[in-house]
């Protein structure tokens, strides 16, 4: 409109410009003229007025036309270009200004397009950089997780609420081994992403350690805190806490703690060993004082009063004799009782003796080109050894033997003698003098160019062992016997089948997660869920059918955690229906001897704590759980979402809402189906796909989801 008004003004101005000077000039001339001249001029002009007017009008029209043309091209054209530029700036990045109009406008358009191209290039570059940075952060996270998972220490990272953001495999196994009672059924149910560490460790102690760290940070000391705690089952854990500090903010500001890393070590065994050692030490020191006191006093009297009568002298001598033999007995007893704890503190590992021998054989054959054989071998014998120095010692002896006696071959023997292991290095040949052996014993180990700072004797001492030279006269051969402590290997924590793909032991996005107690008005994507499925003996819970398997997985932060699962067979304490066996694939043999529902249900309940339950056709599964409420006292009070009903909400016009059909409809490919855990995982995948679909329908919170589900037709079908 404004432009139009300006156009009209321009037209008026044009009209004035064309007529104005003529009229003004005429007026001035007119005023200046005499009467006769005026008449003459009037006559002259009036007769030619039509022509003049026509010419003026013609000129004005052409002027208007030109004006209009200019207006179109320069004003409206630029206005249009302005709009296009806006479009390019906002809605459609790829839009380009049309090059039209006069050359000046075209040049402007060209320049604008060039600017846009430059901007696009910059933006793409920034986007690429962002993507790259994201990828590298992701890669770093993965590398960290991979590193953590390989650590021999148990590591758990928590946010300030005590929610677990990361844990490694060792931590899972550690806590799994600790968990006793109902949760052991679940297997590591205690530890999980987003779960509270306080279910495992004492909250007060954690809070106290945080306070210690806060104070140490404030004082500029290394922020670290240690504590020892008793876990379930009386196991002692040494916990070390270090803070996770937010990236340093402004200069001079104390870095804020955003979480903490806990390393957990089970020290029960080492503490027991230590206290045994202490006990032995105590027995030997304080235990000897009384006896030594009596001896010393008696001896002093004997020396100081040499002229005492015979009877008294004999009594003092007897005191010395008594106490001395008492002390000897005590010493023997202590050594016997604490033999294991008195051993060297050098870090020895439990190894199979046969592995030591095999390694020594390989090296002797490779380096010394001396054939070796084994004789009597106890291949189940574990010893405590520093395998490197022990193998070196064997090779060293072999090399010395080769130099001095050139035996044709060497043989090895491993014998188990209760607490001690005998490892013999045997050769046939002439007797060697014990002096030679003592010399070798004191030499630094060296063989085939390799040397060690340790002597053979030192290696043996480190092992708390012994070595000697012995002849087998009858067989015309001799051997060196290594005596080494036998190890009782601790049962290795069972290595679990690793699922392929990225480990799910961490989720750093949880750093900023608030407390996760269930609030019905929270977004579906923010909550923690347990997706579960049950297998049962049949379809009629009220008619005595029972649960035979519960499978469940967790969804945290919109991610299905396939490593944090619950998978437990249940003894239904009644025969299975033969017709149901092909469906769930669970046989009588599989359920007999499994815990019954009284044991499994509390464990499952603990697994589900603080989460929303999800099941496909949840009403069916919940019915089974509810029927056990009275007997077990376990109630599942949390909200329950049903993927069947949610499917009906999303696709009200579809006929089938069976899990298989939904999987296909949503384009989800699942490896295997039809055991409880696999079905639970499938249900979880379905749910995750449904969240955005529900959002499209305006269903964002869990309350809305529950309400929508209730209104569907299927919700009215009751069991």
């Amino acid at each position: 409109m404004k432009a139009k008004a300006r156009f009209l003004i321009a037209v008026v101005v044009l009209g004035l410009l064309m007529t104005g000077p003529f009229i003004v000039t005429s007026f001035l001339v007119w005023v200046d003229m005499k009467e006769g001249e005026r008449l003459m001029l009037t006559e002259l002009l009036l007769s030619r007025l039509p022509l003049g007017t026509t010419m003026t009008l013609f000129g004005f029209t052409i002027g208007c036309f030109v004006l209009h043309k200019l207006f179109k091209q320069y004003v409206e054209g630029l206005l249009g270009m302005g709009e296009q530029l806006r479009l390019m700036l906002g809605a459609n990045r790829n839009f380009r200004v049309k090059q039209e109009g006069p050359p000046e406008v075209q040049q402007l358009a060209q320049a604008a397009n060039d600017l846009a191209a430059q901007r696009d290039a910059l933006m793409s570059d920034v986007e690429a950089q962002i993507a790259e940075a994201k990828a590298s952060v992701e890669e770093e996270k993965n590398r960290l997780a991979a590193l953590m998972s390989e650590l021999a220490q148990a590591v758990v990272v928590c946010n300030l609420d005590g929610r677990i953001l990361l844990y490694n495999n060792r931590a899972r196994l550690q806590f799994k081994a600790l968990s006793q009672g109902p949760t052991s059924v679940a297997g590591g149910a205690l530890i999980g992403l987003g779960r509270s560490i306080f279910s495992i460790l004492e909250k007060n102690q954690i809070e106290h350690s945080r306070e210690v760290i806060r104070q140490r940070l404030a004082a500029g000391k290394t922020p670290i805190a240690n504590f020892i705690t008793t876990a379930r089952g009386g196991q002692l854990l040494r916990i070390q806490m270090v803070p996770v500090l937010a990236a340093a903010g402004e200069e001079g500001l104390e870095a804020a703690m955003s979480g903490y890393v806990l390393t957990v070590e089970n020290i029960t065994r080492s503490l027991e060993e230590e206290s045994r050692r202490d006990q032995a030490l105590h027995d030997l020191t304080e235990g000897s004082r009384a006896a030594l006191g009596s001896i010393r006093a008696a001896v002093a009297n004997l020396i100081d009063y040499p002229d005492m009568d015979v009877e008294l002298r004999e009594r003092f001598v007897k005191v010395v004799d008594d106490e001395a033999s008492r002390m000897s007995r005590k010493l023997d007893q202590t050594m016997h009782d604490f033999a294991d704890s008195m051993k060297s503190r050098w870090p020895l590992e439990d190894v199979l003796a046969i592995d030591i021998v095999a390694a020594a054989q390989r090296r002797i054959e490779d380096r010394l080109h001396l054939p070796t054989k084994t004789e009597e071998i106890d291949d189940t014998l574990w010893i405590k050894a520093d395998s490197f120095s022990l193998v070196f010692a064997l090779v060293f002896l072999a090399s010395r033997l080769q130099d001095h006696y050139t035996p044709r071959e060497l043989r090895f023997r491993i014998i188990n003698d209760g607490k001690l292991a005998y490892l013999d290095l045997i050769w046939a040949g002439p007797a060697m003098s014990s002096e030679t052996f003592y010399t070798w014993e004191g030499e630094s180990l060296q063989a085939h160019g390799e040397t060690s700072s340790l002597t053979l004797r030192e290696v043996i001492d480190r092992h708390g062992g012994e070595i000697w030279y012995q002849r087998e006269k009858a067989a015309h051969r001799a051997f060196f016997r290594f005596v080494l402590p036998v190890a009782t290997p601790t049962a290795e924590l069972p290595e679990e089948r690793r699922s392929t793909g990225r480990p799910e032991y961490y989720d750093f996005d949880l750093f900023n997660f608030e407390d996760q107690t269930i609030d019905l008005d929270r977004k579906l994507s923010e909550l923690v869920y347990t997706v579960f499925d049950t297998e049962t003996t049949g379809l009629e819970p009220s008619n005595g059918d029972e649960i035979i398997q519960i499978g469940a997985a967790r969804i945290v932060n919109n991610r299905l955690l396939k490593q944090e699962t619950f998978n437990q067979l249940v003894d239904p304490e009644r025969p299975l229906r033969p017709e149901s066996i092909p469906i769930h694939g669970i046989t009588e043999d599989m359920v007999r001897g499994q815990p019954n529902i009284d044991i499994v249900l509390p464990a499952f309940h603990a697994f589900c704590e603080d989460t929303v339950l999800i099941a496909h056709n949840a009403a069916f599964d919940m019915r089974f759980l509810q029927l056990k409420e009275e007997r077990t006292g376990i109630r599942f009070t949390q909200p329950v979402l049903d993927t069947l009903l949610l499917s009906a909400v999303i696709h009200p016009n579809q006929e089938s809402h069976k899990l298989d059909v939904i999987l296909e409809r949503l384009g989800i490919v699942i490896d295997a189906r039809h055991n409880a855990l696999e079905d639970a995982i499938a249900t979880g995948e379905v749910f995750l796909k449904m969240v955005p679909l529900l959002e499209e329908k305006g269903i964002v919170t869990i309350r809305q989801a529950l309400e929508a589900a209730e209104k569907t037709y299927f919700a009215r079908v009751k069991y």
Partner: protein
Amino acid sequence: MKKILIVDDEPNIVISLEFLMKKEGFEVAVAADGDEALSRAAAFSPDLILLDVMMPKKSGFEVCEALRADPAQAALKIVMLTAKGRDTEVARGLAIGADAYVTKPFSTKDLVVRVKDLLGLA
């Protein structure tokens, strides 16, 4: 003549202490446990008591506390003998009123010096 009460449940040390103290010219009595120590202390009214810590019935600490609580025994000197050499126990013995604390094994000469010292005989 100053009187010394020896309290220890180990006859092998009692025999030496008894002999030693008699040789040094003291009148000596012996008790083998904490209860006996208290009754002997009352009857014998010693000037000094050599008191073992680890004894049946009453420990040396208890005996020491009981004696220190008795105004009649205010002048009594108490030397504790112990097979425990920890600083903490020494501190406890001295804190509850022992005049000296001697750890087994000990030098008999030193013990005699300590005893005479405490009795003002040095």
